């Protein structure tokens, strides 16, 4: 046995030593295994390398292994230290939201809309309630007939006065509602009031989308995250409620109140909540798009108007009819009095205007509307009449029906024509007239030498247009002639010196008509016998007559008289040559009666 051991020692000495060392190493390891601290120290440096390697080789497996552990850890950590986690995550939330809004703004808007919309609604309702209370207090402290009426109504209906006030005033009427695709402007659904539909809703939607882009682009550059909310035009407005991928445009006639906005907002909230996905996915294909369901929702916004009409129909207005009729009668009486008074005023004003007095201008008055009728010669008169009455108190409007008749002569023109004509006529010897013009008549006064001149005057004046009546006050007054023809003592012959005077007289007589009589009286110086003188004076007159007849074929009759007296005013003793004469005068015979 020893031998065997010796042999073993000889042959396996080296191996036995190694084995011994191995045993020693194993004991050390065994003892280390029983000491966890030592194992930890050994494995710790390798742990990260192992994980990295395993993750690289089989990622899924590692995730599978670690997920439950990590989840449990997080859950446990969340339960035990919520405050700590909240503090750690808080700074990240705002950054995360900002980032999300930046990249997926529309999705964020759609997600938040239902929540924020309700929140705003609640806030607005609360504010409105406070406002109502404030109004109520004010109303209770005021006192007037209106307040009293409202108080009774409120009591009978069992609602607050402020509510009544708001209800009375909130007559907003939604005429049309369009749900519009935000990017393309395509109408996704529409509802319209059939009594007053809008033309071309697609065009309106596109235009509105363009306007939104235009305005929002500007807003974006100035204030972030704001959008256009309302477009007003005349008494109407377009209320715009925007979501992420669509917006609701409500065309509202009349003022819109909180109730209106609230209704529109609630409806849009419902649409976004129920059909948000369909709207987001919309690409132009209307097939399968739930526009009918959306129509049912938005058409409810139109209902209030029809209800109001029904209420109105039931109103017992019939009791008011007698009062209305009486009021109407009294009103008419009042208007009639006003009309008469105004008409008198207008007629007086027109009459007082010297340029219009002569025309017959009629006026009719009806509740401030003045109708002028009649005829005037020029547009000037038509405008003048309108001008002078337009500032009279009570004249609201003028219907100027005055007819301009160019044939109707202007009195100014007639007067002017008369002036020129009369001046012209007066240039003629033997005419000396003037006129008194009183539209449409003219009175002619003055004198002419004879009838033919007078007739000429009348004929000429008749030719002036516009003169309706001529009042002839022209006297016939022959030339105021007293021609002396002197004779030598005892002679009846006409001396040569006197010829010229007589020839001038003949020339004058030729220009006169036959109604003039030439009267020739012969005189003497009273020397000699009376008998002889009687013959001399008659001969002197006759000789003058004979001379006139001999040298001129005149139409007038000649009357010769022998005056056996001295000419008035002549001293026959000292100036006998002046007493020996014949005196020629002219006399007018009216109606051919001889003198």
């Amino acid at each position, binding site marked *: 046995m020893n031998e065997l051991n010796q042999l073993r020692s000889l042959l396996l000495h080296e191996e036995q030593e190694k084995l011994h060392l191995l045993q020693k190493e194993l004991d050390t390891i065994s003892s280390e295994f029983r000491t966890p601290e030592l194992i930890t120290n050994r494995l710790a440096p390798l742990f990260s390398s192992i994980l990295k390697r395993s993750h690289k080789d089989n990622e899924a497996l590692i995730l599978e292994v670690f997920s439950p552990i990590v989840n449990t850890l997080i859950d446990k950590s969340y339960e035990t230290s919520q405050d700590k986690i909240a503090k750690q995550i808080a700074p990240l939330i705002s950054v995360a939201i900002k980032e999300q809004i930046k990249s997926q703004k529309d999705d964020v808007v759609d997600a938040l809309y239902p929540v924020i919309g309700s929140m705003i609604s609640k806030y607005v309702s609360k504010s409105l309630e406070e406002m109502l209370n404030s109004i109520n207090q004010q109303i209770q402290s005021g006192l007037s007939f209106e307040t009293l009426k409202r108080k009774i109504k409120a009591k009978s209906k069992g609602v607050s006065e402020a509510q009544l006030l708001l209800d009375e005033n909130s007559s907003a009427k939604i005429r049309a509602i369009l749900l519009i695709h935000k990017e*393309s*402007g*395509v109408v996704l659904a529409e509802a319209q009031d059939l009594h007053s539909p809008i033309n*071309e809703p697609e*065009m309106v939607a596109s*235009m509105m989308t*363009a306007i939104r*882009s235009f305005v929002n682009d500007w807003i974006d550059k100035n204030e972030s995250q704001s959008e256009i909310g309302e477009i007003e035009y005349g008494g109407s407005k377009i209320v715009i409620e925007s979501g992420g991928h669509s917006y609701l445009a409500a065309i509202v006639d009349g003022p819109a109140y909180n109730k209106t906005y609230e209704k529109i907002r609630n409806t849009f909230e419902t649409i976004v909540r129920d059909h948000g996905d369909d709207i987001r996915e919309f690409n132009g294909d209307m*097939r399968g798009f739930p526009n009918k369901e959306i129509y049912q929702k938005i058409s409810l916004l139109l209902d209030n108007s029809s209800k109001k009409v029904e209420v109105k129909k039931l109103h017992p207005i019939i009791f008011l009819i007698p009062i209305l009729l009486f009021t109407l009668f009294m009103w008419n009486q009042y208007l009639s009095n006003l009309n008469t008074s105004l008409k008198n005023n207008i007629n007086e004003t027109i009459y007082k205007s010297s340029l219009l007095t002569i025309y017959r201008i009629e006026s009719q008055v009806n509740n401030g509307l003045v109708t002028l009728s009649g005829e005037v010669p020029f547009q000037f008169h038509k405008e003048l009449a309108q001008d002078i009455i337009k500032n009279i108190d009570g004249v609201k409007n003028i219907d100027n029906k005055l007819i301009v008749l160019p044939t109707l002569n202007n009195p100014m023109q007639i007067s002017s024509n008369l002036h020129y004509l009369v001046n012209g006529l007066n240039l003629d010897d033997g005419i000396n007239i003037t006129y008194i013009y009183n539209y449409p008549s003219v009175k002619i006064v003055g004198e002419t030498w004879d009838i033919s001149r007078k007739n000429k005057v009348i004929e000429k004046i008749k030719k002036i247009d516009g003169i309706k009546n001529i009042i002839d006050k022209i006297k016939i007054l022959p030339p105021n002639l007293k021609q002396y023809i002197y004779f030598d003592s005892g002679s009846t012959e006409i001396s040569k010196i006197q010829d010229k005077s007589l020839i001038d007289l003949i020339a004058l007589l030729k220009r006169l008509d036959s109604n003039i009589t030439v009267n020739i009286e012969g005189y003497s110086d009273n020397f000699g016998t009376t008998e002889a003188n009687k013959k001399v004076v008659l001969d002197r007159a006759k000789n003058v007559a004979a001379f006139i007849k001999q040298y001129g074929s005149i139409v007038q009759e000649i009357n010769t008289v022998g005056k056996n007296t001295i000419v008035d005013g002549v001293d026959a003793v000292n100036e006998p040559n002046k007493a020996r004469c014949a005196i020629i005068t002219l006399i007018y015979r009216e109606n051919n009666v001889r003198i």
Partner: protein
Amino acid sequence: MFAYKIVMVGDFGVGKTSLVRRFVDNSFSEDYLSSIGVSMSKKQLTSVDGFNSTMMLWDIEGRTEYKQIFKQYLVGAKAFIIVADLTRPDTINSIDEHINLCLDSVADAPICIALNKSDLELRDTNFFDELNNLSENIISVHKTSAKEGNSVNEIFNKINNTIVEKF
């Protein structure tokens, strides 16, 4: 039933408005062009497959040296018609820029190119291929004349058929 928006793009004075006027049923006053830079028109169309469409045409103010195209108006378009004036080479040269602008707003939109005023330019144009190669989105290039009506209906029908097919 389809409803979509298409936008007319091009330099100032190339005849976009005249092309639209030749084609549409109804349009808003062109005064809007000078106020907010866009005028709307509507056309009801039937595709070769028998589908009805409502095409809303946005005729936007042409680009000038001093005023660029308002990009917001391009958003949401289903297709673009880029118009150039055959008699003005500078308007043809800027087609490339317009294509980039359109595709920047709507990446996959089909584009038709209308070389307008063909009644004034009688020379043969040999740059069709070159234009076609500017972008994969170009579906066709037409020589049009708003004055004589040449190819006007074709270009809009082409756009409509392409859009309807895509659905």
